[in-house]
Structures are given as structure tokens and as C-alpha cells.
């Protein structure tokens, strides 16, 4: 899976922790498969941002590929 949008990184703020979100390693999982992926996340609470183009693009493709396994 490709990396998420980095362009928005500096402009995203975790409202709960009031800290800037940064690109970091997170885990994505579906139907028992798990993969590491770099996404923008809150360094404190770990909330991850999944941008629209990822959700409807590569992520959807991977979901469908796994569903057809």
C-alpha cells in the first residue's frame, strides 16, 4: 500500500491532544491480513488519518483483492 498524503501533514492537528500529526508507521488489517503502512498519526494518542484518495484508491483495491482471496 502506498503512503498517505504527506502534503497535509504539517497542517493537521490532533484536536484531542492538541499536537501536530506526523507521518509514522501504523498497522492496517483486513480479513485476517495485516500490513505496516506509513500514515499521518497523532504521536501522542495514535489516532490515524486516512485520507480520501487512499481510502477510495489503493486501500479499496487491497480490500477487494483480500475479499477475493
Amino acid at each position, binding site marked *: 500500500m502506498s503512503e498517505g498524503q504527506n502534503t497535509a501533514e504539517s497542517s493537521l492537528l490532533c*484536536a484531542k491532544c492538541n499536537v501536530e500529526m506526523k507521518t509514522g*508507521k*501504523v498497522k492496517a488489517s*483486513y480479513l485476517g491480513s495485516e500490513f505496516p503502512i506509513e500514515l499521518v498519526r497523532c504521536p501522542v494518542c495514535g*489516532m490515524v488519518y*486516512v485520507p*480520501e484518495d487512499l*481510502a477510495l484508491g489503493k486501500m479499496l483495491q487491497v480490500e*477487494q483483492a483480500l475479499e477475493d*482471496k
Partner: protein
Amino acid sequence: MDHEKAREKEFQCIQEQPPECTAACPVHVDARGMIAAVAKNDFNAAFSIFNRTIPFPGIIGRICDHPCEHRCKRNEAGAAIRINALERASVEYGRGARKSLFLSRKDTKVAVIGSGLSGLTAAFDLSSKGYHVEIFEAGHLLGGRIREFDSQRLPEQVIDDDLFALEERTVVIHRNVAVTNGSGGGASCKELLSSFDAVYIGPGPHAVDHLNLDLDLTSDNRIRTAPVSFQTSMEKVFSGGSQRYHHQEYSPITSLLDGRLAAASIDRYLQKASLTARREQDGPLVTSLYTNTKGIESLQAVPMTIKAQGYSREEARSEARRCLNCQCLECVKVCEYLAHYGSYPKRYVREIYNNDSIIMGAHLANRMVNSCSLCGLCKEVCPTDLNMADVCLDARQSMVARGKMPPSVHDFAIRDMQFSMGPSFSLARHEPGCTSSSAVFYPGCQLSASLPRHVSRTYEHLRRVVKNGVGLMLGCCGAPARWAGQEDLFHRTLDAFMQEWQRLGGPRVITACSSCYRLFKDNLPGVPVESLWTVLDAAGLPPAVKGTGRRTMTIHDPCTARHENDIQRSIRRIADSLGVEIRELKDSYDMTPCCGYGGLMSFANPEVTDKVVKRRISESELDYLVYCAMCRDNFAKYGKRVQHILDLLFGSSSDTAAQKGPGWSQRRENRAMLKAGLLRELWGEETAMDGPGIKLIISPEIQAILERRMILEEDLQQVVRHAEKTGEKIKNLKTGRILARYRPVSVTYWVEYSIGDSGIVIHNAYSHRMEVFGEGQ
């Protein structure tokens, strides 16, 4: 689907059966393929297709007695394709590598006595298989009776060119060597028998008693041979050609066939294999390929400018273009789904079966299985009644049972169904003021979602015309679960219906939706079901219907009512009494296609659904009249002017034909409001509705996005509520907007919003099913 059943279904599809020309041809020349190549001006390809089967293309191209032409389907629309003339053209204008096989030579020797077409073919085939072949010809020319054709029709040069193939195959040719009993010179039959491993005799049509062959003869002194094998009374001797069919006219292609079949027997004999096993496909065949010639323009054969020269290239191409290229494809012609995958059911069944059986690897046919509308139109047009709906439904059930159904495909539709089964919509009551019901009205979940006001008014009318109490049942018949292959859920849904129905005393059920009607009829044999339309037809229409003058419309029958003639007739009578003049579509009644909703196809494959809807709505310029809510909304979504028959019955002044159906959120809302409204008005009960929730401001553009992405307003509410309550949200410092997500069960919804003066302004929403964990990294 087990292997046996899959094979049975596969065999039911006749598309791969040979066309009449190939079946009629004793040696099964692929005339259809050859002609297609000529039509494409590819004479080399045409020649090589012809030569693949025919060892002497120059000769046969000129003198074949072409039984193919008698059975050509073009006869039904003009005149048969002049196949033999096209064969000749392929030889004249097409060249290329002649068929040549260089197998390792065998030591085994075969003698061929007589060099007519049967002997020549036997020699050709056996030498191609690597046998050492020697031809014994009493005269000085090879060819036997083919030398009797006039030289314009069959020039010697053509014969010589073709027979060169024998020399290439190192066949030894003994000219001027008569085979006798040994007394009069020439070759002795006995010697041949001892020095060759097998012998083929093709002595021509005449009696052979003078040859003293020591073989059993028929009463008219021809060599007696066994059917199928062409074996004579001597094990190693085979015979055929016009000797065998001497009482008929000379048939070059039959002689060629005899030589070919006898050669095959000799090969089997020499390999010690059965001479007769698996030879059902030898010779002319009956084919079950169906080719529809209805509506095909009648065309006569292209004339030859110079008869002696045969067709010119151009003439041959024109003649070839008349070929119908016989195919069945009846189902593929009427079904966008079957056409979409570029093949035909025989292949599809195989793919679906393989998809069902593989354990490792990608299930490539999943989407295909889920894209069928299950409407059964294929069966209606299929000459052998193959129904792809059975195949696809069976595969879906198997996928669900094995946990292999992609979770995303039917999730939304099933959740929608469960909403209808839940407390917001489901209801079962006797008529207000009654303690029993002679009948119960079952409007179904989609009509209630699309046209809730018409449901109320229909129920009002039914209470007037149905005697002894007509109850009301709201819910879902379970069709989405059935279509999704979820048999457990489907049967639980039916059970829930049965329970409520029994509680009402088991009254007659009046359904407005033909899907409910069919499912109840097919699955609940104890439940008397009647269609709203036949009930209204018999009991009379509401009195207050405003006549809007005569107008002309066309009717689209729902696929689930394709066999319900009573319902179809009732609808037309009702339409007529409402002032509608019906123009029938080309395909209606039992030939009606699905509107694009059936089988939940739109959830699995929007692309195919698009084709299905567009095709149907383009079949008439007139406004469509339908009697299924999903047909109405599906057509309206594409801008087709369409009315539900209840739009006419309870017509308002506004133009309902141009109205689009409600969106996903509104559909649920409509169902809930219908139930609450009826409870209030008829039974005097107030429903505790959920509070108004957070006020969302959604522009039409965003509404369209939500619709396409199947995101409900309720989903947005949940995300915003969760974000505002927990503070789990992301602030975009550039835009000032908030990004938040919430995952109720198996889908994560993301909403981009801002807080406006009068409510939450929605800027975007999307979803994904994959789970993402960023905590504790």
C-alpha cells in the same frame, strides 16, 4: 455446485456445438471459420483452415459434392452460402504452408490398392502418421474417378499439385501395377498380404469378383466391410470408397471420408486399439446448435462473373459476408450481464465452478457471480432452458457457506433489509376496529420507501373493498438475503413473517411487490398470496381517480412477474381504465429484462447495472408505466420518465413521471414515517421517534456523493456525535475544517465538517473497511 452438476449445466449450453455446415461435412471442415477468413480478405488463413481438414484442397475445392450447402442456415434467409465455391477461392487466392507433419518414421508398412480419393486419402493420412505407405495403381495415372471430371472443372495441373503432397510424404507409388491373384502378372495379392502389415483396398464402384480376393463379398459382389471400422473379413484388410456406396452417386467427399476413417481404423489396428470405441463423431453429424434466423434480411448468392474461373477475390468476399456465422448466443443477445463478460454460459459455468472449487489464489469470478440479476431471462430464450440464475445463486450460497463471499458486496443491502425487519418499520396488525383479518396488505419494503403516501392510500382503499377486515403487515420478504446467498438469514426472515402471519390468523396475503409475491409463492406453500393488482382489477379502483385524458405509455413488466399472466393482464386492464393506451415494448411479459435491481446486481457491479438500465430505457421514447417500485426508481435515476401505476391511481397534479426516487437515507426515513403515520392515524398510537439529532447541512453535491458511496445521514450523525463527544477529531489548520471518523461495526466512516451557525456543514464523507491501528507505536 458439485462437479457433476457443473458438467450437466455446461453441456446444456449448445454454443460450442458445430454449425450445420461443419456437422453436415463428412470430415467436418470448419467452413464457418474459413468463410470468416475470406470475409476478412485473409485468403491465406482461409486456405490453411480448409487444408487443415482436407488433404487435397485443390481437388476438393473444385469437385466436392458439398452436403454442407444443403444444411446451411442461409437457406432460411435467401440461398445457401456457396461454400464449395469459397473453398475453391481459398485455394486459388490463398497459399501458405500446406499441412505437413514430420513424425518419426515407423517400420510398419501399409499397402493401398487403388488410387481413387479414398485410397489417396488413406495413403495421405497413414503417411502423415509415419507409416511406410505404398500405393498400387493399375493404370498410369493416380486419381481414379476424379480423372473423369472435365479438365476445365478439374485441370490436371490441380490434381498433380495436390498429389505432390504424397511424394513429400515419401509415399511409394507403383503405377501400372495391377493387384491380382498372382496368375496374370502384376502384384500378387497374397504377397502383399504377407509383406505388408495392413492393406487398404479402394477398387472403385465395380464388382470385384474377378479379383479373386479371398474376401467375403456382398450379394452384388462388392467387398463386405464392417460398419464404422471398414474392416473386411480379413483382419488386416480394410476397404471403402465407392466400392462401399456404389449404389449411390459418386461423392468425392464421401470417398475422402472412407479413406480417412479406414486409415484411422488401420492405425488403431496396428496399435492394437479398439476399432470401434469412441467413433460416434465420425462422418456427418446432427448438431444441436441453434441459430435464430428470424428477422435476418434475405440475400441471394453472389453471382460469378466468369463461371469457369470461380469467384473473383471480390466476389468471394461478398459471398462470404453473407455467412450468418452461425452462433446460438440467444441469452447473450438479450442480457447485458452475459454480454459484459465477453463469452457465453458454457464458459461461465466452468469459470464459476472453478471459482467455487479453488482453495488457494484469487477468486476471479466472484464479481461475475454477484453481478447476475437472477432474473431468468436467459432461460426464457435458451433453446435448452439453461438458467444462469440457478448457477449464480447456487455459487453465492456456496460462497456464503464457505465464508468466501466478499463481505462488502451485499453488506449495505442486507443492513437496509434488517432495518425493514426491525422496530422502525415492521408491523403486523388487524384492521383498526377488527379482531380478525380475511386478508392482510403487504406493501413490501421498497414501495414503502419509494411511495409511502401511495401505500397509505392503497391501504385505505383496500379497507373499503376487502370484506371482513384487511390487516397490514410491514416488513421485508427476505429477497435481499436470498439474492445475497444468505439462506440462513432468508429463512429466518420467512420464519419471522410466518409467525406474525399466523398471529393474524393466517389471512390471504395481498402483495404490492412482485418480488414478495414470487418469494412467498415459491417458499411458503401454505400461505395464500394474491397480487394487489389482481385484487384491484377485480374489486374496482378508488373512485376519486381523476381522469387526465387518454395518454400513451409503454409498460415494463418486472422480471419477478414474468410468468404471472394474471397480474400482467390486470395491470393492463387497470391502465386502460385509467385512460392509458399501452404500446408494448418488443420484450415484455415473459421476455421482460430486469430493471437493474434484481439479484442486488447494482451493489456488485454498477458498470453492468448501468448498461442494463440504459438499454431498457432506450427501447421507447414513451413514458414507462411500471408496477414495481425498484423499476420505477432505477429508471427515474437515469432520467427516464416513468410512473408507478399507483402514481396514476392516486395521481397528483404535479408531474410525477419526472421525479427521481428518494435517496438511501430518505428511503429509511420514509419507511419509519409511514409506520409512525399509520399508527397515529389508524390506531391512534404515537411512536417515540429518535430525537431530531444533530442538524446536518448537506448540499445537493454532497448528497450525490453520499448516495454514490452508500453513506447514510445516520452514519454522518454517528461520526459527528462520536467526535464531538469524545474529542477524537483532527483539525485541518489550513481549511479550519474538522476530520473525524467512527466505525460502528465493520465500516469506518470519515466525515469532513465544520460547525456553522445553523448546524453541522458536511463537506465530504467517505468510508473504508480496512482497520487502521496507530496506537502504541
